[in-house]
């Protein structure tokens, strides 16, 4: 008896007596999806075992973007490692800088001035919006809708303009370093930010009208790639993937770091369909929930940013940090809530300026681990929908 692989289509190849109709079985085909493929978001390679349009199994192969980030971290001073952290999750470089700086500051006991802390929060929340915009746009692209992609990038452009005015870079900022941001905010930044928020918040409703509640979009994503809350926790998912499964867990709220306890915001989670304008077909933990959590998070980030604008004090932004920072002989593990989940840095010092060990916990890597579990017995088109909803950045998966 052959192994039965049609879990979700059990009666498909069985006759009335439950005998396996081996004659009807068609030949299986191995398809290589990636590392060059439009919907694998970089260099993810999936080997699909398919039967016609049905994908029986998808095995992710990673490592095409491996750049020895951790090893580099063990050979550079923390200052010098900041530009490398830019290149982990290159869509959220500010957040990466932030997490690593926080880890080193905790190790060395550096206190950042108030204004510096606000600047860091502003930058990381702006970058969260930018990152979710890319995720929103490219997810629409995965599902064949071209226009939201351009809209997402149009709005992201203004955020990049803001970043550029602050630090001169548009992708790899290295703006937040150990002891606070490298420079103070330029003149007019906060006014521009206010203007951007006024422009941006109505746009989110436009996205919902255009894509989120679109019937075809809901039919493509609702009930596809469902992750139960237990599974999500067991596989170590974090970020929107975890919250999409209905688990109310956000480090900014549950274990507030820095000044996040001063802001009022909610943790959006996936909720079952039928209530609150959510389409009926939606199941908690499906691709639509993961997608919609990101949309809702953009609103919350905008809320945090507005509170930052009200609260931000004047004063210095950087702490006094020695040029050569001697790392004490202890270890610190710090996790921050990045757009894609919890980015953790383990930094071990040994009294020298160069850390003994730098370990990176990339959220994309952990989130991707469940892909082969949920890409089973789905259609080829669903692969794009599932991988897109997990929203991995390969720079962070491979490091």
């Amino acid at each position, binding site marked *: 008896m052959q192994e039965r692989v049609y879990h979700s289509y059990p009666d498909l190849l069985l006759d009335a007596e439950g005998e396996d109709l081996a004659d009807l079985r068609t030949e299986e085909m191995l*398809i290589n999806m990636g590392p060059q493929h439009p919907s694998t978001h970089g260099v993810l390679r999936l080997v699909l075992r398919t039967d016609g349009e049905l994908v029986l199994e998808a095995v992710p192969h990673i490592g095409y973007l491996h750049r020895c980030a951790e090893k580099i971290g063990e050979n550079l001073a923390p200052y010098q490692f900041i530009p490398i952290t830019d290149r982990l999750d290159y869509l959220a470089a500010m957040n990466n800088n932030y997490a690593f700086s926080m880890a080193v500051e905790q190790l060395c006991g550096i206190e950042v001035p108030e204004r510096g802390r606000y600047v860091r929060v502003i930058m990381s929340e702006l970058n969260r919006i930018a990152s979710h915009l890319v995720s929103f746009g490219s997810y629409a692209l995965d599902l064949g809708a071209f*226009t939201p992609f351009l*809209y997402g990038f*149009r709005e992201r452009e203004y955020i990049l303009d803001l970043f550029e005015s602050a630090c001169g870079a548009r992708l790899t900022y290295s703006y937040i370093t150990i002891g606070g941001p490298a420079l103070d905010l330029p003149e007019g930044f906060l006014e521009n930010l206010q203007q951007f928020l*006024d422009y941006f918040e109505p*746009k989110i409703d436009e996205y919902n009208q255009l894509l989120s509640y679109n019937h075809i979009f809901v039919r493509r994503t609702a009930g596809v790639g469902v992750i139960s809350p237990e599974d999500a926790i067991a596989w170590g998912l974090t970020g929107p993937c975890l919250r999409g499964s209905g688990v109310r867990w956000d480090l900014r709220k549950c274990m507030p770091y820095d000044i996040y306890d001063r802001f009022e915001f909610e943790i959006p989670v996936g909720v079952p369909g039928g209530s609150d304008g959510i389409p009926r077909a939606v199941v908690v933990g499906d691709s639509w929930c993961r997608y919609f959590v990101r949309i809702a998070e953009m609103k919350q980030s905008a809320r945090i940013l507005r509170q930052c604008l009200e609260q931000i004090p004047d004063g210095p932004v950087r702490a006094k940090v020695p040029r050569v920072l001697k790392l004490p002989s202890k270890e610190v593990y710090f996790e921050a809530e990045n757009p894609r989940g919890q980015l953790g840095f383990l930094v071990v010092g040994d009294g020298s300026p160069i850390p003994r060990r730098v370990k990176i916990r990339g959220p994309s890597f952990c989130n991707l681990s469940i892909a082969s579990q949920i890409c089973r017995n789905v259609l080829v088109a669903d692969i794009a929908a599932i991988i897109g909803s997990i929203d991995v950045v390969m720079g962070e998966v491979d490091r």
Partner: protein
Amino acid sequence: MSTPDSCDRRVFQAEDRATRAVRGFTLLGAIFVLVCAILAFGATRVSGVAGLLAGLLAAGAGGLAGASLLIALAVRFREPLGRLLARVAFPIFMVAVVATVFFAWVPALLYEEVDRLAGSVSTASGEPRQMPLGVAEIRSYLLGSCGVGSAWVATLVASLLWLLQFGLVRDLITVTGIVVFVSLVAMFGIWWERKVAGRIQSRLGPMRVGGWHGWAQSLADGLKLLQKEDIFLSGADRPLFYLAPYVAFVPALSLFSVLPFSAAWVCRDLEIGLIFILALLALGVLGVLLAGWSSNNKWSLLGSMREACQMISYEIPLGFSLLVPVMSVGSLRLTTLGEVQANGFTSWVAFASPFTLAAAVIFFIGTLASCKRAPFDLPEAESELVAGYHTEYSGFRWALFFFAEYAEMFAVGALATILFFGAWYSPLPAAWGAAWERGPIWQRALHGILFSGPLWLIGKSLFFVYLQMWLRWTLPRVRLDQVMFACVQVLLPLALMVLAGNSFWQLWVLPQSGLARLANLVCAVLGALVLVAMLAIIVYARVNRRRLVGSLVVEHLPGA
């Protein structure tokens, strides 16, 4: 610092090549002039066949000499010439487009004239005359009754008119017109699609090539594709791989041979025109299948299998929805189907009864699927199947698939117009313009523009093409099982119901009864409301575009 870099050297070499070309062509021209002179001199001295031959050769040499000298001049003055072309190319292009639109009118007028001529000649001589007439007969007629003064003008015109008597010549002219028209439609369609996409996405679309809104973008792309390497895969099935683009393109082109642009404007007015078009639409899938299979690429194969199953399923509701107007009108001939809608907006087949309106909607959805347009563009689903069946194609073979797609888009738009939406007639009642139909030439032209004519058909078809584009840039793509579900469980029962309903309607509701008139009125008002709503949306969006797009966009994108 004085060493020229590679770029300078290339420019330098190009200059050198141009100088050499000018010199070469001038020399060639001089040689031809010499040859021409010698031959002409010989021709005056020798009589008979040899003299004629020498004269002909001299004329040929003279022509070649002129061509060489012209080329030399063009190369010599290529820069001012290029500047001039850049300035006048767009008007020339537009004139060419308009000329193509009017292309078939001129032969149609001439054919009419020739046929009338044949009739008058035969009646004048009092005995039945067989076509074709001889050149001499036409010439004498022209000199006699038409009052053409010059003898050699009469000879020239007579020989040209003589040619036009033959069906083969007429067909050749028509086929040339169709090929040019299809190419223009495809190129215009691609450019237009990019502009529409750009505007929907708050971009500008192509803006550079040709000056005015990048109108020459498709031309430039076509030239680029022509130059590209024709990549052949070692693992592919060579004959099929080479054949597939043509198998996809030729049916799309052949569609136009039976498509009437107006009652008099049709290459072949077949009794079974509708079935012929359906057959050709279905044949297009063969090219896609061949492309997918012969590429030896798994993604291509998946794409072509999707196309096959999608196309074959949607043929059925498509066919049923086409049966509805056929049943109402009682003919498969496309011109007959069109001519019943002559009497203005309310006479359009789509508004005859609720069933025909439903059939029009089903037909439109079916054509989306059969043209592989979004949201049914699964065969070339970029994010799933790379590029589907044409993943492995490059250069002009790849372009042929696109030509086929845009030609088909226009063809199904035209089909929808002919069957449901008033064919080549304007929404104005025909009675208003009846007096102009037989008037002098300018009244007839005005009638052609205002009441019935190819321009109306082309305009309405382009509207349907625009609808397809609009949907494509707004909607996400559906999944294969949903495509099948929509076809088999929704569209097919609906089409059957519409067909049955229309049968009963035809049986029981008399054409002039109160119920029929009421249904007609309601449907027509519904259609008019939809149109007005569309126009209102366009006007609203145009007026409020700055507010709708948001303050920051306008500041950043001055042209948006």
